[in-house]
């Protein structure tokens, strides 16, 4: 079917559309900050464009490189991720942003190693589970060894500078979620997997208990108005932004809430500003675009030629989809406030880079994918049906 073959194009159009939309909104949200600080109006836009350039190259490269080849190097990827996460601990390279050491700074470019760790983990799980498919039900190979890897990464992500108050709970939760989904698809025993979210939840509660800064955040989402001056300030201002936008919005560039009322207006909270300026229809269109993105990448996943492709695909779909979902759910006050960027739209280089690389991998899977022909036979996709990049 034509549509089946066009799925790569659909994905491409959605991603390009989201990026373009993101750049417009980034300019709209970052200009007031730049003007206020006496900086250059295009500063953030230029930086984002630079990352976009690197990301585009990476995306094309990944779509050209056979993922079977890449998957073989997955263990090295995990080693690299561990190395990068450890770099955060090196003074002079590790960088503190918003009070947390989550970044490494090389040649003026700030990079968040936890973003890279997500992709490395997806590749590692795909490699491991396709290698040990027959032992997927085992406790050791089908659960404990991959769990150990995830646990190790989580520890590194959560405790930078050996001071867990500055840890990145969101990234750790994301890693666990990717692990759970890929393991589920790979056929791991449910009785091993089920406790994971429960243990994770208990762990999260304990963490929240020990981090007073985050404890308040945790339950504030249920009644943001009550906590609007304290822990739910950001969510509350985000709701005001969205709500005041109404059906048609205040017009592009006319957001009032971006005038320092809503913190993180160009990163985590870019979506409420978009809603305020452009209105409900555009906001719904963005949500729909993410839905289509998930469906398209899901389609690619399901029609992957082999289990490795399925695991990679579902891992990437989860990474992109859950990030978007968490971001949207947080700004609409449907879940506790967890700093999570909106893929392709939020300002931030490492996330964009990783997302673009992941989309590149999806293109590669789609390129090698099998599709049902009208007569019911599965066949490989003929050449040149994926976007030529």
């Amino acid at each position: 079917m034509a549509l089946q073959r066009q799925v790569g194009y659909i994905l491409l159009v959605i991603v390009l559309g989201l990026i373009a939309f993101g750049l417009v909104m980034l300019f709209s949200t970052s200009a007031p900050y730049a003007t206020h600080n006496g900086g250059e109006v295009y500063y953030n836009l230029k930086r984002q464009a630079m990352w976009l350039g690197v990301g585009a190259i990476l995306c094309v490269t990944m779509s050209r490189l056979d993922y079977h080849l890449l998957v073989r190097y997955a263990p090295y990827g995990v080693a690299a991720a561990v190395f990068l996460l450890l770099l955060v601990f090196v003074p002079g390279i590790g960088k503190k942003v918003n009070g947390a050491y989550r970044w490494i700074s090389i040649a003026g470019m700030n990079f968040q190693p936890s973003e890279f760790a997500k992709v490395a983990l997806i590749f590692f799980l795909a490699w491991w589970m396709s290698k040990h498919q027959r032992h997927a039900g085992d406790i050791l190979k089908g659960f404990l060894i991959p769990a150990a890897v995830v646990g190790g990464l989580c520890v590194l992500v959560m405790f930078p500078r050996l001071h867990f108050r500055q840890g990145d709970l969101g990234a750790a939760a994301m890693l666990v979620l990717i692990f759970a989904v890929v393991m589920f698809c790979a056929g791991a025993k449910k009785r091993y997997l089920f406790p994971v979210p429960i243990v994770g939840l208990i762990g999260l509660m304990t963490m929240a208990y020990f981090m007073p800064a985050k404890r308040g955040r945790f339950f504030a989402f249920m009644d943001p108005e009550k906590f609007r001056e304290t822990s739910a300030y950001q969510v509350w201002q985000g709701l005001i932004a969205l709500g005041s936008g109404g059906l048609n919005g205040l017009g592009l560039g006319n957001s009032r809430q971006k005038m320092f009322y809503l913190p993180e207006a160009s990163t985590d909270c870019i979506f409420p500003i978009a809603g305020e300026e452009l209105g409900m229809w555009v906001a719904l269109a963005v949500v729909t675009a993410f839905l289509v993105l998930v469906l398209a990448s899901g389609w690619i996943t399901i029609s992957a030629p082999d289990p490795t492709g399925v695991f990679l695909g579902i891992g990437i779909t989860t990474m992109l989809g859950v990030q978007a979902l968490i971001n949207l759910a947080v700004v609409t006050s449907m879940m506790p406030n967890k700093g999570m960027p909106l893929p392709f739209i939020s300002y931030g280089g490492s996330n964009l880079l990783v997302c673009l690389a992941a989309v590149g991998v999806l293109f590669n899977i789609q390129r090698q994918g099998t599709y049902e022909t009208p007569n019911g036979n599965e066949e490989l996709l003929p050449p040149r049906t994926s976007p030529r990049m």
Partner: protein
Amino acid sequence: MNHRQRALYVIVFLAFGFTLVSLRLVQIMLVDHEKYQDLAINNHLRRIELPPHRGAIVDANFNTLAQTRIINDIYLDCQDLKDPEETLKQIASILELPADQLIKSYNPEARYLPLRKDVEEKMVLALRELKVRNLIFKETSVRSYPNGAHASHLIGFLGDDNRGASGIEKQMNSYLRGIPGELWIEKDRKGKEIAAYRRKDLPPVDGMQVALTIDLSIQHIIEDQLDKLVQKYQPAGAFVIVMRPRTGEILAMANRPTFDPNERRGAKPDQMRNRCLTDTFEPGSTFKAVSIAAAINEGVVTLGTPIFCENGEFYYGGFTLHDHERYGMLTVREVIAKSSNIGTGKIALMLGQDKLFPYLQAFGFGRVTGILARQGESAGILRPLSQWSKVSITRVPMGQGVAATPLQMINAMSAVANGGALMTPRIVKQVNDSAGRVVEIYSPRMVRQVIAPSTARMMTQSLEDVVSDQGTAQAASVPGFTVAGKTGTAQKFVNGEYSKEKYVASFIGYLPAENPQFVMLVMVDEPKGKQYYGGQVAAPAFAEMSKKIVQCLNLEPKKETAGVTQAKL
């Protein structure tokens, strides 16, 4: 169940999540839109009130009595100050501050460095020319009264809420205050205006100018004279009121003790009370003019009617009435000139209390004049006839057992000077808006014709005699003008009896007698020393002031009359 099927579950689960988000978005952006819109408006929309300038109070010749000055306190936000040394030098030269000292006090961290207070408009304009964004101007308006304590009771002052608290400031507050303007702006969270979203801009309407009937030069004359009186007699109080009989306009009014509205801190309520309106006194002999005018108007007596004055002792109603000199036969005219108590009492007996009382009311006693509303003006004491004792008919006509404010006294005398027509005393002449257009003009208002013009003429004739070698107030005469007037020396009623030490000395007179241009009351409450008669204390002060006032009012002395007066002297 293979991998792909499981993957499908995950995808369906995710898709479900996005659907939920969409529904939630519709709830926030469509259903609750108005609630959040209000909250957003509450966040950034601000109303800024633009205060109007309070109008000035001026005298009849548009000399300033009260004005609002804008002064600025200037501060410097030292953060991100470009080229601090050079800028500071420029600022210092404009503000006339030592430059090196300013540079020394400069602290790059300070956000609110005070530079100078009370800076005048000119310097502010020069500073604004510099276009240094770090300068902070704090504008405050100050009400100032350039004439200090002069006429302070009349002009009044502002309360802490910048509304008129007394005097004209209170009476005319609604005209003076102006209408505040407003500015609707949108602010970012740092409090800075977002210029692109400025809304309607309504400029303030400045307050109106209120012109009083006061003549500042006359006011200065009476204030200076009061200072002399206070120095000489150390009285408990002293009052001068100058009025124009034809119109009822107050030309000047002053009290002692007094206060400076510019330095109101520490001033006691005692000093700030406008006693000309709030305090009542037994008028004493000045009241005789009123009583005898009633008798003449009723045709009971004429100026020539002889009255036997009982040689100084008149026994009536169980009490003896005394005169300060023993008089035999006096005409009515002489009774007034010599201020005979017995004569006045007998004339009143001839008239009868039922006929006297309505005249006292008609002259305005026992009723407020309403010159300054709700400022404690007293109505005085005029007991109804039912409360009069048997001797009241002999005591009230000579100003005992009745009390009046100085303003009531002068107003009654003014009616005599004005051919018998009682006028409403007026203090506000006109109101102009800030552009100088006339908003309101207050015209003279007659209350009633109290006595016939012919009676008034007769009264003036006999009041002229008071200010002659025949009368009690020779000291009140003014060369070149015929003065008509009446003295008063009232014993103060202390602890149930009339004091032998505390007096109120007064004189009310007007000139020129044939065409009165002003009537003036001089009253000294409890003068210390041996002199306490109205003719001794108040009359000379009257003369001294009148000599100056006739010049202020450009009154021509009459040649032949001047000769006559001088001959009499």
